[in-house]
């Protein structure tokens, strides 16, 4: 695969996967995938169902480890042993399955493993009030039918859940925010707000990796598009220099890289 980046842009690169492969039993979910993400850009990843997009995301966010190939993030090779490592390194992810805990409340989910504590002598005790207040702020920027931050996630509608997961990823400063189909279940207004949020994240200097089946969204928001097909990365384009038709042709296999 050729490199679609202009020479000189190399130092701008935040994340690079190099020949990453991963199989589940006999299913080859990722085959020799090499993609790059630049700092301060929105990069889109598109492809058919089962093309391997979520699997690639899970490799970057520390859930899977590639069976071969390497991942370079922020200048150094990384080998995350757990999602904790990835979050430490500055990668926040909105997973396709949202990764919410249904039996916990909205605010508990928002602050999961990022809890605010107050010390009582040597004992760190949760500052529930502070978290609830912050949570209310975070959620109200995004959701329309604001879910009560003290209600359990189990009770939220599909879209409300997605809003919570996005809030969580956006709420903590990070170098890279990965969003795996963040607006799939969202209504019109919520989608608009999430798109605003994505743009804002970019403008604030974060990089965003966006997976979406919504073409107009991809063409509208992204700076760079990578296309996957059947586990392989079959091409990358600067969004400004391509058309929806070309991308569709890549996805369906009607055109080569």
């Amino acid at each position, binding site marked *: 695969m050729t490199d679609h980046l202009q020479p000189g842009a190399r130092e701008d690169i935040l994340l690079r996967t190099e020949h990453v492969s991963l199989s589940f039993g006999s299913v080859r979910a990722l085959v020799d995938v090499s993609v790059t993400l630049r700092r301060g850009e929105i990069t889109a990843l598109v492809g058919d169902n089962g093309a391997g997009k979520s699997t690639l995301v899970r490799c970057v966010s520390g859930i899977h480890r590639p069976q071969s190939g390497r991942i370079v993030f922020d200048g150094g090779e990384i080998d995350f042993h*757990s*999602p*904790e490592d990835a979050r430490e390194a500055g990668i926040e992810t909105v997973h396709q399955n949202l990764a919410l805990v249904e039996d*916990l409340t909205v605010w*508990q989910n928002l602050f999961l*493993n990022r809890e605010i504590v107050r010390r009582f002598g040597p004992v*760190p005790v949760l500052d*529930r009030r502070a978290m609830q207040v912050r949570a209310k702020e975070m959620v109200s920027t995004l959701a329309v039918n604001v879910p009560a931050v003290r209600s359990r996630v189990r009770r939220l509608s599909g879209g409300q859940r997605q809003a919570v997961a996005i809030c969580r990823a956006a709420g903590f400063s990070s170098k890279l925010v990965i969003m795996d189909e963040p607006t799939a279940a969202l209504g019109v207004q919520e989608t608009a707000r999430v798109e605003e949020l994505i743009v804002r994240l970019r403008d604030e200097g974060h990089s965003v990796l966006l997976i979406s089946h919504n073409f107009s969204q991809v063409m509208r928001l992204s700076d760079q598009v990578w296309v996957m097909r059947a586990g392989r990365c079959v091409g990358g384009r600067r969004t400004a220099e391509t058309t929806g038709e070309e991308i569709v042709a890549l996805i369906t296999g009607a055109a080569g890289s």
Partner: protein
Amino acid sequence: MANATLAAPEREAWSARLKDVGFWAEWAALVGLIVLVIVFQALNPTFLSSGNIASMLVAAAILIILSVGQTFVVATAGIDLSIASTMTLGAVAFGQAYAAGWGLPLSCLLAVVAAALVGVANGLIIAKGKITDFIVTLGTLSAASGLALILADGKPVTIIDPALLSLSTGGIGIFGWSVIIAFVVAVVAHVALFHTRFGTHLLATGGAPESATAMGISTQRIKIAVYTISGVLAGLGAILLVARIGAAEPAANTAFLLNSVAAVVLGGVSLFGGRGTIVGPVIGALLLTALVNGLTLLGVSQFYQPLAVGIVVVLAALLTRFQR
């Protein structure tokens, strides 16, 4: 703009609360306990005499401590079947140390350490070996009681120690020392579960392990921690047990296992993990103890007691019916 989560008017909210599933599930044990107390008191006025309350509380102390340990494990969707035999092992370790002249404090320490080690082993095998909790703790149930037998060479050790005796007989008012210890354990456990990061991570691990992992929580560490807690509490239970029966015996007290799980479930904690209270299991333990005490007071024939216990347990559980 209208808001779908807007609360309905006050009165409706209250009736809704009564209809709300969580409400009854969480307080089922309490309702059951109150009903039971009323029935027994009506049938036998000595039931609520201060002497009988005191002896019920003392009788419940060990079960309360074990149930708290079991709650931590169950909240992570696990189950500690070894809890009773771990206690036996702790008791035997205590007995051997005491008989060897280690003195009371060191013997107590050894009891807790021995039991904690079993807990750590459980946790390590479950977390690292990725084996189902049920089968691992079933294995350690057997292994721990085997170890207890080997250590004790099958013989009980009688322990007569004034300090230990006063632990089991003394106290403040109607609260024996062992009850006070049990309540302190419960309060600490409550704080740990609901007011620390550990507690939140524990519930997340139980409710959605994959989500917890994705958020960077080490579910393995949580698993090891809860089994260790369960082991430590079994060790504490062992000390109270030795104090209570005046001997360290290697024959396991199997009733504690099922009763500890029953107390947890009656307390409204789901065996599927992810949610839990400490108050519930404590009340569950009191309920089970009061039940046996009341039946004994009423002189219900031995053969009818298991039947009565079974029926009451199911009835009490009916109150938790809407759980989840």
